[in-house]
């Protein structure tokens, strides 16, 4: 399916995601204007503060968005009983986007007002204008072109940055981009990227026109219009914000997932099992990036998701890797109970470990079956590893040490891109996931970890203790899934979504029916 066919077939969804996207941009930029413009004005009155405040805004811009999300999710900041920062969803995405939008707005307000011809300012003061009158009647109107230029830059940045909001279940066109990256589907990536780019261009054009109309010489501010406009913007931002931030107050079981196919399928399996066995309403908060699912669970934003024992041990608990599967399970169970009040339930049955993969034809030609077998080819081979594999304590460094490997080149890239890079011959070996559906689809071969280097990554549902206490039927429902999913089954389900483009919801439903796990099945 090409891009146009896709967009035509998913018109309603594209429109919906674009609206979500616009909403994120509009509310966050609106908040940034309400904070940034007055702050910029204040700085012109107290120039000594300009260095620290502009410095802070500058630093905010350089903080990676996932790091910022990780910092914001556990926060609980209330304003008039409405939670304005913290948790997953639009609220936190908006807070992050607003922080990113602040710098250009503060800076342009500050420089715009400072750039007003000193002779004009002196004339105004000499005529007996108060500081307020000078500001509102002369300085702000004359700086308006520059201020709008700052808002324009902030808006265009926000349209681009808002794609990352999908990482915390905040919606927007980023959903397509993340899903496309995950499924190695360029059409899907473009279906998110092209409308986002068009939104950015449209915003740039419209605000450019506004900027131009305020351009040289400025425009006289009609006091009543200015106040009315300001009140309208503030009222719109506040009502929309209260509306979104307040929604979802009713109690449901919230099931989360990380942002890759297997996790979404497992999220569906858990959600559907709970729905059919307990009748409790379930809210799905899938596609959480990085370790945000963990943050969300601890913060009480979700009640359960599927975690991997090895990930919990090294990436979350920061403990040294262990190779014994039972020992790892025992360890994380105890630590989670003590530190997070989170319980590890029955393992699902499969181990999603790192899979060292090479092309099928290489495996056949060179007769390779084990990782230790590639040592003599490694100096001529290039590798492509995900950021995760490179940075984890049980990842790249220990791996090359354990097998005594030296590669010709090590390239760090997004995990989902490494499969394609391997199949296309751009790299010769990658570290994928053992359950990845693409392994079969692209004819890749997994090498045996003959030195038992990689720790176990058993998939296990984790849940908040307080939720399990409140809904005892939940524990029974999740326990029923214990030991029901094999690696082959997981790989097949992943392929059904990644390769056959079927919906995770349908694949999960079919699995539960076949396994007779569905209620009444």
């Amino acid at each position, binding site marked *: 399916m090409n891009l146009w066919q896709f967009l035509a077939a998913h018109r309603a969804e594209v429109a919906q995601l674009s609206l979500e996207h616009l909403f994120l941009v509009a509310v966050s930029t609106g908040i940034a204007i309400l904070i940034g413009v007055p702050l910029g004005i204040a700085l012109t009155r107290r120039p000594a503060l300009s260095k620290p405040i502009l410095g802070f805004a500058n630093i905010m811009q350089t903080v990676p968005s996932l790091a910022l999300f990780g910092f914001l999710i556990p926060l609980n900041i209330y304003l008039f009983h409405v939670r304005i920062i913290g948790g997953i969803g639009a609220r936190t995405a908006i807070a992050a986007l607003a922080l990113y939008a602040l710098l250009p707005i503060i800076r342009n307000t500050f420089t715009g007002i400072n750039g007003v011809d000193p002779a*004009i300012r002196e004339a105004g003061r*000499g*005529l*007996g204008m108060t500081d307020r009158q000078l500001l509102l009647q002369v300085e702000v109107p004359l700086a308006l072109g520059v201020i709008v230029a700052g808002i324009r830059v902030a808006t265009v940045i926000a349209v681009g940055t808002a794609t990352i909001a999908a990482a915390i279940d905040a919606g927007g066109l980023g959903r397509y981009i993340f899903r496309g990256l995950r499924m190695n589907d360029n059409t899907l990536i473009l279906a998110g990227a092209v409308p986002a780019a068009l939104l950015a261009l449209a915003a740039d054009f419209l605000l450019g026109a506004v900027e131009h109309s305020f351009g040289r010489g*400025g425009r006289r501010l009609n006091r009543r219009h200015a106040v009315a406009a300001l009140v309208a913007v503030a009222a719109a931002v506040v009502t929309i914000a209260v509306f979104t931030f307040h929604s979802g107050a009713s109690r449901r079981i919230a099931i989360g997932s990380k942002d890759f196919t297997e996790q979404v399928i497992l999220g569906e399996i858990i959600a559907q099992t709970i729905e059919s066995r307990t009748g409790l309403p379930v809210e799905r908060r899938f596609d959480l990036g990085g370790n945000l699912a963990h943050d969300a669970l601890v913060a009480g934003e979700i009640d359960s998701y599927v975690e991997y024992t090895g990930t919990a041990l090294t990436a979350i608990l920061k403990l040294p890797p262990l190779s014994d599967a039972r020992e790892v399970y025992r360890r994380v169970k105890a630590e989670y109970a003590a530190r997070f009040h989170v319980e590890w339930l029955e393992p699902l049955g499969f181990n999603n470990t790192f899979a060292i993969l090479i092309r099928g034809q290489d495996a056949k030609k060179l007769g390779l079956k084990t990782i230790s077998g590639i040592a003599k080819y490694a100096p001529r081979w290039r590798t492509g590893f995900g950021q995760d594999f490179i940075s984890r304590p049980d990842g790249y460094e220990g791996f090359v040490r354990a097998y005594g490997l030296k590669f010709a080149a090590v390239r760090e890239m997004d995990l989902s891109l490494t499969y394609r890079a391997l199949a296309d011959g751009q790299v010769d070996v990658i570290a994928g996931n053992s359950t990845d559906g693409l392994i079969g689809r692209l004819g890749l071969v997994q090498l045996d970890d003959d030195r038992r280097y990689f720790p176990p990554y058993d998939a296990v549902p984790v849940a908040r203790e307080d939720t399990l206490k409140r809904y005892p039927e939940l524990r029974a429902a999740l326990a029923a899934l214990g030991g029901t999913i094999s690696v082959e089954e997981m790989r097949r389900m992943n392929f059904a979504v990644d390769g056959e483009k079927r919906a995770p919801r349908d694949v999960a439903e079919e699995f539960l029916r076949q396994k007779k796990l569905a209620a009444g099945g």
Partner: protein
Amino acid sequence: MIMNGQSTAIEFQGAGFRLPDGRALLTELNLSIARGETLVLLGRSGSGKTTTLKLINRLLDPTEGGVLVDGKPTTEWDAIRLRRRIGYVIQEVGLFPHFTIEENVAVVPRLEGWDDERIHNRVRELLDLVGLDPARFAARYPRELSGGQRQRVGVARALAADPPIMLLDEPFGALDPITRREIQEEFRSLQRRLGKTMAFVTHDVAEAFLLASRIALLKDGRVVLLGRPADFLASRDPEVVAFVSCLRGADEVAAAP
């Protein structure tokens, strides 16, 4: 030269002004300006003329001595009230580019809360007074006017609320010589009709002679000579002679065959 308190509009009593770094821009200034008088402050760039003006409308406060306006030290005046009683015209004019000519002239009356009709009539009256046809100019923006026309608007704006005192800081300095000559002549007749107290800063000695009741010549922040134009021509002080020779030089060039 002897004046009683009643007829003195502005009085400098040992006034001085020092920058925070200690540099003195003005030292030990003693002079008074009588009601209806035009005192011209003459001097080279950096001699302290503009500083002297800014001490009158409290754009600056003296660091030594005091400045009295209507018998009250400026530091006891509310700065905003004081400035609205004092018209202020600067060389760069400083018209508000986003206001029409009418709106520019109406700034102070509007701040003072006049009603629309009164403002409207006053603007027309003032534009006529400075030789600009209201029908042609009222709705234009400053960028659509020539330098001379803009400076006329600047004078009209300063006069709008009929302030008893006018401060003019090289108002015609940026104009071409012919326009400057015309506008100086018109200003002189305006000055006679209005009878305002004026402090007028210039470095153009011919302008000083044309407009001044008295001239104060400043050098390095101090008064070198204070007197009528006739006293000026009689002085032997080297700085005075230097300025007067500019006047003579211009005449000689004009008289040369």
